[in-house]
């Protein structure tokens, strides 16, 4: 399971008339999209416009009030309770286990995901994100930028078909941003990558942008 040998699967996410309210307050409505080929797709909108809400719906953590969202791998539809297997997720509000070391975190994640822990692959990723010499330190001692890098490792470890990055470059220094942009570009050749962000630089990477402001009321 290294990056070079990953199969290119036809993965498709189809969104139909997606509407979400919190209580009786409308967040967005009537979103129709199909994401069926590799690339970088942006999701933009000001704070509170529902960026995090829609990416959580993509992950199956939140359910929409009306409309449907489906994931397909090849010709077969994937049940919503196993979408998590095909998704890699990074966001500022994702939290890691403080009391364990970085490598233990990744090992627990892979065990809970029911995949065998491969130290080679995890080292490869630690190397890539430049925190290999700190992999045996407790996450408690990490800076927020390093935690962000570790989250990328956790998101990529199981080689998912879809990557969802909510504000991927927050807390990162210039070198970190550079690494992340390179990784995103590399991933986008064979996977569907979502970027939910307000950052101009992030959005410029995207081939297509979903502006949530356009779905407020109609």
């Amino acid at each position: 399971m290294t990056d070079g040998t990953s199969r290119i699967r036809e993965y498709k996410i189809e969104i139909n008339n997606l509407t979400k309210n919190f209580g009786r307050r409308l967040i967005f409505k009537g979103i129709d999209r199909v994401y069926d080929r590799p690339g970088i797709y942006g999701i933009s909108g000001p704070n509170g416009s529902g960026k995090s809400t829609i990416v959580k719906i993509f992950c199956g953590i939140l359910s929409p009030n009306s409309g449907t969202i489906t994931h397909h791998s090849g010709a077969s539809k994937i049940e919503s309770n196993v979408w998590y297997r095909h998704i890699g997720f990074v966001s500022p509000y994702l939290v890691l286990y403080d009391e364990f070391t970085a490598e233990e975190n990744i090992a627990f994640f892979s065990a809970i995901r029911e995949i065998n822990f491969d130290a080679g692959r995890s080292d490869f990723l630690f190397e890539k994100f430049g925190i290999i010499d700190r992999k045996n330190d407790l996450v408690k001692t990490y800076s927020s930028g390093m935690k962000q890098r570790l989250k990328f490792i956790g998101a990529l470890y199981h080689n998912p078909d879809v990557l969802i990055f909510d504000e991927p470059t927050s807390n990162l220094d210039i070198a970190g941003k550079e690494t992340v942009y390179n990784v995103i570009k590399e991933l986008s050749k064979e996977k569907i990558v979502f970027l939910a962000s307000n950052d101009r630089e992030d959005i410029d990477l995207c081939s297509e942008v979903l502006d949530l402001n356009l779905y407020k009321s109609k």
Partner: protein
Amino acid sequence: MKSALALLKKDFSSEIRTRYAINSLGMFIVVTVSVILFSIGNEKINEYLTGGLFWVVVFFTSMSGLSRAFVSEEERGTALTLQLLAKPESIYSGKFLFNVALVFSMNLIIAVLFSLLFEMFLFKNLLLFVFAFIVGNVGVAASSTIIAAIIAKAGSKGTLYPVLAFPILLPLILTLIELTKQAMDGNTVSDSSVELAVLFCYDVIMISAAYLLFDFIWKD
């Protein structure tokens, strides 16, 4: 199931690192039992009362410790991480197994303390008590785990937990107190088969209801 066990292993390692339950629950048991000893003084209390007090201590210790399974994940914000790692059923199973282990070790300590400190904590039929203890502990863990999942999502977690859990645990505790009395009186297992069956039904109903409903609680 594998991922439930992996989660169980994670919680155990976390417990070993942080020693939360060992320290705070252990102390809680010591404090509660001492309060009972102080309030009794030199009074000789009868055996039924020690049986009742035993389950009172079990109830309050459970209420102080078992909510942590979900509350800690929710407070630290790792609940989302878990949502992205496994199916809800696996999460519930993992947490349930952890709480079962916790309830068993905790109640075993309480039982040992009670038999050392109270002369009247004696069973004519120990086997019946052991049966009730085992089936009862599973029931306590099942209800406490699902209530913990509910209060993890609500405010004022600490005070709310016993309030929500008590009515749900009441039939279980009443039956357990009854069985403890019967074990003290020396009933055979077949004499008390109805009560044991009630306990067993409670476990089955609670575990299956929790499985069905956990999905709704777990997803935001």
